[in-house]
């Protein structure tokens, strides 16, 4: 009985504990600021954005924040950039979700991530937001699904320098590039509809970036149709050099599987596989491996591609006494080597695939997802001892040397003053006041928790040299 009581107490305290940690909904109505809500939000909170127009940029530098639009009777919340604001949403926190927003007329990107892991970007409508629509960068484990994007002058969905990404069920049209996977590993692009772009799906290694590889990418079950839009990329950008009329471009990337796609009506070619020579007028990077290796083209439905190819492709096809472009084009160079493979090659119009081998596998059905079941883990959180050491050496030691005057008094002098009174130090550093006329005032450390201030204070009292 006592034992049961005991459990009850524990259970109650757990519930109580959870209650305080429960996610709050923070509503934002038209006329209010989304950013103000984000600033108030604590990790776990959901910012609910009600229908209306919001003329602002929003940045999220906290973990576990959700921005969720509320759609009422067909009315959406709209972030309006008026052609003058930079990006609609910038995030750097982990476990970030953004959904149910309409985003229009920004200069830079609609949604841009810098280093947040475990991101979810879904159910958004993105129209003419400048350079990219959705652009996560330096993130691990991300899901991009059910977004509709158009009118973007570079890539509508651009996954740059990420790991473990799934891009699915999106519609991208009237952009220069539909969906681009660049310097990224372990990505699946599936069940998307890429139409009326300059090029539909692109898998690239771009040279000159700090992360150098692209490999293990699956493009499957997408519609890649009628990507014949004139290239309206910004001068100097890499996609501005992509010829119009291409369904899929694989440049320098390795281990890309193309399977189960419907690729039709792309007037230059259905699929182009090429080394880095495809993009001219770019500074070379000896650390970027330029050749596409181990590409696998499994069964796809391809027809009506190459009806009106750009001049270079037309010229190449003339060497085979054909006037129309190919379903599949392997560019001159390593793209034509036999480490690449294809199934049922004879059904397509091809160029440069003479040496390609026959693929061993017929399907990627055994690969369900590249998302991580438990998410990207935070770095093995060090114990308090490590954190204390880093705080002391990383911050305190900048001003306090052991037995030498620096910006602040020497540690020995502080030890002599406080003896065993660590709490005295912990309280003082939360709200320092000027003690010594011949020293500058100490910056407050109130942003550190009481517990960690106490630990740092104890550490300081025990510093030996």
């Amino acid at each position, binding site marked *: 009985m006592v034992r049961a009581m005991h459990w009850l107490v524990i259970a109650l305290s757990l519930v109580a504990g959870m209650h305080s940690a429960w996610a709050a909904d923070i509503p934002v109505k038209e006329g209010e600021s989304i950013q103000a809500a984000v600033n108030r939000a604590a990790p776990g909170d959901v910012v609910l954005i009600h229908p209306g127009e919001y003329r602002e940029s929003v940045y999220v530098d906290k973990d576990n924040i959700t921005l969720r639009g509320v759609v009422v009777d067909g009315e959406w919340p709209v972030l309006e950039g008026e052609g003058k604001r930079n990006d609609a949403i910038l995030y750097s926190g982990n476990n970030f979700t953004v959904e149910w927003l309409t985003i229009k007329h920004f200069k830079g990107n609609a949604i841009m991530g810098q280093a947040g892991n475990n991101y979810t970007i879904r159910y958004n409508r993105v129209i003419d937001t400048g350079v990219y629509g959705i652009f996560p960068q330096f993130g691990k484990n991300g899901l991009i699904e059910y977004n509709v994007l158009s009118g973007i002058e570079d890539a509508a969905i651009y996954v740059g320098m990420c790991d473990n990404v799934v891009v699915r069920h999106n519609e991208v049209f009237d952009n220069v590039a539909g969906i681009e996977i660049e310097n990224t590993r372990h990505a699946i692009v599936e069940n998307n509809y890429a139409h009326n772009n300059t090029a539909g799906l692109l898998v690239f290694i771009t040279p000159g970036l700090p992360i150098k590889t692209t490999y293990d990418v699956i493009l499957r079950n997408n519609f890649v149709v009628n990507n014949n839009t004139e290239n309206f990329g910004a001068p100097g950008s890499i996609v501005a050099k992509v010829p119009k009329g291409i369904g899929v471009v694989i440049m320098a990337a390795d281990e890309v599987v193309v399977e189960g796609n419907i690729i039709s009506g792309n007037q230059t070619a259905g699929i182009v596989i090429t080394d880095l020579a495809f993009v001219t007028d770019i500074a070379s990077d000896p650390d970027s491996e330029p050749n596409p290796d181990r590409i696998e083209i499994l069964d796809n439905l391809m027809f009506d591609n190459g009806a009106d190819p750009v001049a270079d492709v037309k010229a190449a096809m003339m060497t085979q006494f054909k006037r129309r472009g190919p379903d599949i084009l392997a560019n001159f160079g390593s793209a034509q080597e036999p480490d690449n493979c294809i199934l049922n090659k004879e059904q397509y119009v091809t160029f440069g695939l003479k040496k390609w081998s026959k693929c061993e596998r017929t399907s990627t059905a055994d690969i369900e997802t590249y998302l991580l079941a438990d998410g990207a883990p935070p770095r093995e959180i060090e114990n308090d001892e490590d954190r204390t050491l880093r705080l002391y050496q990383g*911050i305190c030691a900048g001003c306090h040397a052991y037995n030498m005057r620096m910006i602040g008094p020497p540690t020995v002098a502080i030890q002599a003053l406080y003896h065993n009174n660590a709490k005295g130090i912990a309280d003082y550093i939360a709200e320092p006041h000027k003690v010594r006329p011949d020293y500058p005032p100490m910056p407050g450390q109130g942003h550190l928790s009481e517990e960690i201030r106490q630990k740092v204070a104890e550490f300081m009292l025990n510093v030996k040299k």
Partner: protein
Amino acid sequence: MEKRYSARALRRLAVALCLLWLPLPATVHAAGAEFSLKDYCPAGFQLNGEGCYLQSLYASYDSLQDSGVGGLKTGLPELRQGFSPRQIDLGRLLFFDPVLSGDHSMSCASCHDPNKGFSDGRALSVGSKGQLAKRSAPSLWNVGFLKRLFWDARASSLEEQMLGPLYDSHEMANTPEQLLTDLRASSAYRELFAQAFNGDSSIQLDQVYTAIAAFESSLISLNSRYDLYAHGYHEALNEAEIEGMNIFRSFVARCAECHTPPLFSHQQIAVIGTPEPNNRPLDPGVAAVTGDASQRGGFKVPSLRNIALTAPYMHSGRFATLREAAEFYTGGRGHAVPPGEKLSLHWHIWEPKLTGEELDRLVDFMGALTDESFMPQIPASVPSGLAPVVGVQ
């Protein structure tokens, strides 16, 4: 293995004999006392075994593919570290000692002046005989994180890099022979090298380079107000600075695409086409090293930490202020490329159409990257007996 051991034993014997034969042991002792090397690590480092290791809150974060680039809470690239406290301190003394230059007029600190962000405040540095160097002296803050050194990235280690300024006739104009002769003539240095290198007082060139590399790697600046923001204390930046940070990382200004946190450099080569001063011919940059025409005008992307302290800016010091440097990027793609030159300009050089206010905010934000809390002590005297040299004389 056996051979090496016996060589070491011989060296020890030689050291012992030298010590015995020194005519004035008291002087040596005095010199040694005056310059005894610190047996504790510099600020920010913790002794672990024999070596000093950086303690930074950034160690709590990962980076994708261990690249050391990303966003706010992103781990650092690997640091050159593990040097002993005495090696670092010996490096500090060497760094400020003009005995390292051919005519004993310059130290490393002539062009890497701690009071000027470890740069020299000049567009082009000045050598020991007044010669103009080819490029601007870069800051040494956080240099231990860099995998490639010099504006044209031609050196891949600090040891390799320092051979440039030490022996270049336009800079310190020394020779390895003279450097060794001068250092070995100093009883104080023999004593200090013995302290730093397991009792070996013979003074070898690689020991000189190790000590200077050790000191340079200890110049850490990761405690700016920006860093407090990054670690989660958002009140550390004011509104103007946060606005500037958002412009900085926006995909319109695109600063963070190359000046990527946490070091504010992604350490790649970029051709951006900045103008040369006074009609000087175009500096071919990396292309002069590699012979690759597509890299003409390419330079290593510098870190922006402590950038407010190191005017003027760019490889040739063409821009006097941060405002001018920022403004370059909104002047139009290739606007400063000399007629007839065809450069493979970086794709991020475009036409962001930043407003004047946005440029001001960018300058505000870059100012929040200033942190000199781990400033090393400038020695009052150096072991050669020469006066320490700091800054341009």
